[in-house]
């Protein structure tokens, strides 16, 4: 697997403000990578460096094996980009705008453009200034995918989309990925990343605090587990088990939170007669919140 996005020791300062610091990241070909972080954590700064809109204070960035600064136009020929808070030419209609990009990019498959527009039920014949936030976002999505790029970089892509269109967007991302494209999505919405991405990078206050496969990360998740036994049990029995925190006993029920493997807990419980086990899946949201609390 080759690295499609490679970020080495990337730091960006604005005067004394540190926007991002010492970021190292590789996104491999064929991945759907989620870049997760709250607003203001440095997601957009990272992305705008990939596009060469801003220049690193320190560090080197390469995209598709090309230098982000020297080869920027070549890079941008091969990628699709959806800016966060997209601003479009308000006087144009969607069709005019997409035709304009067709001109700039030199010849696209116009049928595919129309297919995308139909898929998102995008209104491309009205001036863009008359469109709602979500409808503008659709035009933004179309222009990011319309030239079948090798890599699609999107900053908060579902911003303003209604739930139906979000689903359509997820399908489009998955299809495009199956055809071989690499996808890089920044978002602050955990379920979205969980739904789409194979790998996730978590950024906090300008620093990348974790890069891991979503499945592995889930294993590390805090899970809430409840055992119901046939008779009352004592709290002490479970409190000292590895990974177990927040033990509560209510009559015959034991509620606890566990981090990591559940093996020891299950074995301890099996000394008693277990009536019922309720366990939630490790969910990314909790991991995410955990990272931010810590």
């Amino acid at each position, binding site marked *: 697997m080759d690295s499609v996005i490679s970020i080495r020791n990337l730091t960006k300062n604005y005067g004394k403000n540190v926007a991002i610091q010492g970021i190292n990241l590789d996104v491999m070909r064929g991945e759907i990578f989620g870049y997760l972080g709250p607003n203001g954590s440095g997601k957009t700064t990272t992305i705008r460096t990939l596009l060469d809109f*801003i220049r690193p204070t320190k560090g080197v960035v390469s995209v598709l094996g090309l230098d982000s600064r020297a080869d920027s*136009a070549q890079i941008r020929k091969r990628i699709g980009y959806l*800016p966060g808070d997209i601003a*479009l030419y308000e006087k144009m209609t969607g069709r005019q705008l997409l035709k*304009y*990009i067709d*001109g*700039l990019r030199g010849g696209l498959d116009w049928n595919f453009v129309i297919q995308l527009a139909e898929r998102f039920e995008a209104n491309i014949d009205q001036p863009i200034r008359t469109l709602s936030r979500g409808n503008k976002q659709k035009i933004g999505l179309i*222009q990011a995918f319309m030239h079948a790029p090798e890599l699609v970089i999107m900053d908060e892509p579902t911003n303003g989309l209604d739930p139906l269109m979000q689903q359509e967007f997820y399908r489009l991302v998955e299809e495009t990925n199956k055809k071989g494209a690499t996808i890089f999505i920044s978002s602050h919405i955990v379920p979205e990343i969980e739904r789409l991405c194979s790998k996730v990078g978590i950024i906090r206050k300008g620093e990348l605090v974790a890069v891991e496969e979503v499945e592995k990360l889930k294993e590390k998740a805090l899970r809430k587990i409840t055992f119901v036994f046939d008779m009352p049990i004592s709290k002490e029995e479970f409190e000292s088990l590895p990974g177990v925190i927040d033990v509560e006993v209510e009559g015959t029920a034991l509620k606890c939170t566990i981090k990591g493997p559940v093996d020891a807990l299950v074995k301890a419980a099996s000394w008693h007669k277990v009536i019922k086990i309720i366990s939630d899946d490790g969910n990314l949201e909790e991991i995410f919140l955990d990272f931010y609390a810590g």
Partner: protein
Amino acid sequence: MMLRNVFVKSLWDQKRSLVWWCLGIGLMIIITMLFYPSIREMTELNEIFATDENPLMKVFVGDITDITSPEGFVNSQLLIFMVPLLYLVFAIGIGSGSIAGEEEKGTLDFLLAHPLTRESVIVQKFLAMNFAVAWIGVFAWASLVIGAAIVDMEIGYSRLAAATFSGVLLGITYGGIAFLFGAAFGKRSLSIGITGALGIGGYLLNVLGPIVGWLEPFTKISPFYYYSSSDPLANGLDWSHMAVLLVVILLMGGMAILSFRRRDLAVG
């Protein structure tokens, strides 16, 4: 209309504004020209202008001694103040917004998501600004020709063209300054402010220079000096003066490229 590149798209953005400016400048010129027959007969006006009693008047009509001649009339009523003022306002409006306007609206991120170099964006937008000002110039010239024909003024079309050309270059010079500041700092109001001040300064320097002795040597740093001191309407173009304006224009474009390609772009 097919918008295939940034140059055409930039002009397309200006299409309404261009129509109104052409209409406005055209009407203003023709209406002013209609007054010529009544001025032509009033030779006593020349005596008023010939005296040095009211030097401040020269700030707005120029150093005119013969307002009843065709050249004197057109220069004093149109070319000294009103017409270049309009070129400047128009050119500064476009120049300041070319890069900074898109950057402030946030559309620059969108545009540069596609395979264009920053240099190419600058060059195309700069040329579009040049073209738009020249377009206004063509209408101004046509209006001068039409106005002259209506009032039966004896003045050569080519001399009117020479004066217009000089004015267009003056407009583009200031448009270029505004373009540079917009490209370098990404702030439209800053660009308008600085260039507007330079415009007023340049104008005053050029008209006050001949009146206020100690200012005289400095008039040559004013673009207005190269626009009007050779009186293209009476004498045709002084190419050495035009060359100065052209060099300044090229310099502004070149510096815009240098400053724009090295800086960070702002988010909308």
